């Protein structure tokens, strides 16, 4: 069920649901935040900022595992992707490396182009 709440004149759509492993998912205006009820973190009083949530649920990023060149990109922004789906190939050390998604999701941003050189750790794709 989606609740609509208004804070200081701005309307927020909030959807709260239970996830596997005792986790709780809060969807706020389309953005998802996962809370772990077993967490031992101390919640301090005070105003919460969006960045507080972000730090607990970082955006999923696909990073280059090796230095190399992007040889092919198989997805585009806004594509829904499934766990295990091939997203791009990175040519490195004369090997072809298929980079696959570790989770279901949606492509938010593709930060590289075919033929582009990348370094280990560079963000290639961001997922929602």
């Amino acid at each position, binding site marked *: 069920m989606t609740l609509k709440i208004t804070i200081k004149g701005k309307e927020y759509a909030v959807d709260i649901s239970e996830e596997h492993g005792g986790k709780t998912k809060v969807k706020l205006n389309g953005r998802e935040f996962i809370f772990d009820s077993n967490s031992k973190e101390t919640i301090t009083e005070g105003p919460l900022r969006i960045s507080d949530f972000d730090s607990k649920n970082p955006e999923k990023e696909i990073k280059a*595992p090796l230095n190399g060149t992007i040889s092919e990109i198989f997805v585009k922004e806004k594509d829904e992707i499934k766990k295990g789906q091939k997203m791009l190939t990175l040519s490195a050390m004369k*090997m072809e*490396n298929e*980079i*696959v*998604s*570790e989770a279901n999701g949606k492509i938010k941003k593709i930060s590289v182009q075919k033929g582009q050189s990348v370094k280990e750790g560079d963000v290639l794709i961001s997922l929602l």
Partner: protein
Amino acid sequence: MISIKRFKKISSTNEKAKGFKPWTVLVAEEQDSGYGRKGSQWFSPKGGLYFSLVLPKSDIHDLQTLTVLTGFAVAKTIKDNFKLEPLIKLPNDVLINGKKVCGILTENIIGKEVKFSVIGIGLNTNTSSFPPDLRESATSLKLELKKEVNNEKIMKEIVSQLENQLKTII
């Protein structure tokens, strides 16, 4: 431990291998769409030896070793069995008399870590002739030796060497 799957003709042993368990070898008599790095075509007519080995996950920093060890296994098998002097053009080609006799393509499937790897080997064994654009750069064991060789024996010897070598790092 090694399981061998045989095919008369398939598109590509590397592509097909991605659906098989580690330590499976797929060998084809002919490939429709054999490929090398960056999708380049690998000439794969009947007579040649085309096979792929599926490997379990390994440390990402060991990946390049896979190709090098494979090149070594191929060159050693050629040297041990025939009066030829193979040269490993690091990391992924084997040459005889300056011409390519074997190409190796390692493909890694990577998520957060390496999930598995496929090593593809295209060895020109009994290839009788090459198209004009490859004639200057490619050769085969048959062309070099002026006689046919036993594909099955060569494949098993390379696989056996690979199994022994790779177990030290996987």
